[in-house]
């Protein structure tokens, strides 16, 4: 099994703007009672090519695959190109972005944002009068 690598989440906006051309990573977003989870596919990108930034509730993902060696020979089939991935998400304002965690495994970047206590569903007890 590949190991899961932690990705540091930056607060600076230097990489917030999209590059001139880029691929959009396929992303699942779902919510559990405790957290919001995003999973983005960026095959070919290693930890040192991944950048995750959160600023003003905007989450920006950027992934740069390693440069391919040019010793390729004759191309017989080309269905995917290698290039930079970029995607930005507007997060709901209530999430505590300070506690966001990012991990990378087999080309999939997973982000977890814990919900604050206030956001978690609370069961309302119904009392009978």
């Amino acid at each position, binding site marked *: 099994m590949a190991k899961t690598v932690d990705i540091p989440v930056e607060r600076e906006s230097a990489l917030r703007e999209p590059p001139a051309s880029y691929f959009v990573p396929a*992303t699942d977003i779902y919510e559990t009672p405790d957290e919001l989870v995003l*999973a983005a596919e960026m095959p070919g990108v290693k930890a040192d090519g991944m950048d995750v930034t959160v600023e003003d509730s905007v989450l920006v993902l950027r992934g740069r695959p390693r440069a391919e060696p040019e010793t390729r020979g004759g191309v017989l089939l080309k269905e995917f190109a290698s290039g930079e991935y970029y995607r930005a998400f507007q997060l709901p304002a209530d999430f505590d972005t300070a506690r966001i965690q990012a991990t990378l495994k*087999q080309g*999939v970047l997973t982000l977890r944002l814990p919900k604050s206590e206030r956001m978690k569903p609370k069961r309302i007890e119904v009392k009978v009068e």
Partner: protein
Amino acid sequence: MGIRSWVPAAGPFAELQRQMNRVFDSVFGRELGPLGPMRAGYVYPPTNVWETGDVYVVECEVPGLEMEDLEVYVTGDQLTVSGRRPETVPEAGVTLHRRERDSGRFSRALTLPGPVNGGATEATLSDGRLTVRVPKTEESKPKRVTIQAAS
């Protein structure tokens, strides 16, 4: 003489004709890429193939898959990559906001252009990319022909 359909560039039926041709392509016909069948619109896994003098290299994008999710076979000159993309979202107890990743079984066969040494094939998986190196047999390798002056 084969059947050719004419797609008008303009006119009231132009777009309908184009759409009908697309339906026929994907249901009745299969586009043949240089190495094998492709379904119009969606092929998994996305694959690149190139060759050197000694080897065919097949690279597939399979993000999120581990070795146990994949099977690679070489039969004759045909390479098959199959497996299962695991469920990406938990089944119960979640609210789904966006689902763009696919899951489920897949199988893709590629016919390589020349005879290969299947037993010596090597496959590696890293960062969601599968790389398969299939060595050519001696007869597949390019051989330099010496040019002699005609006497």
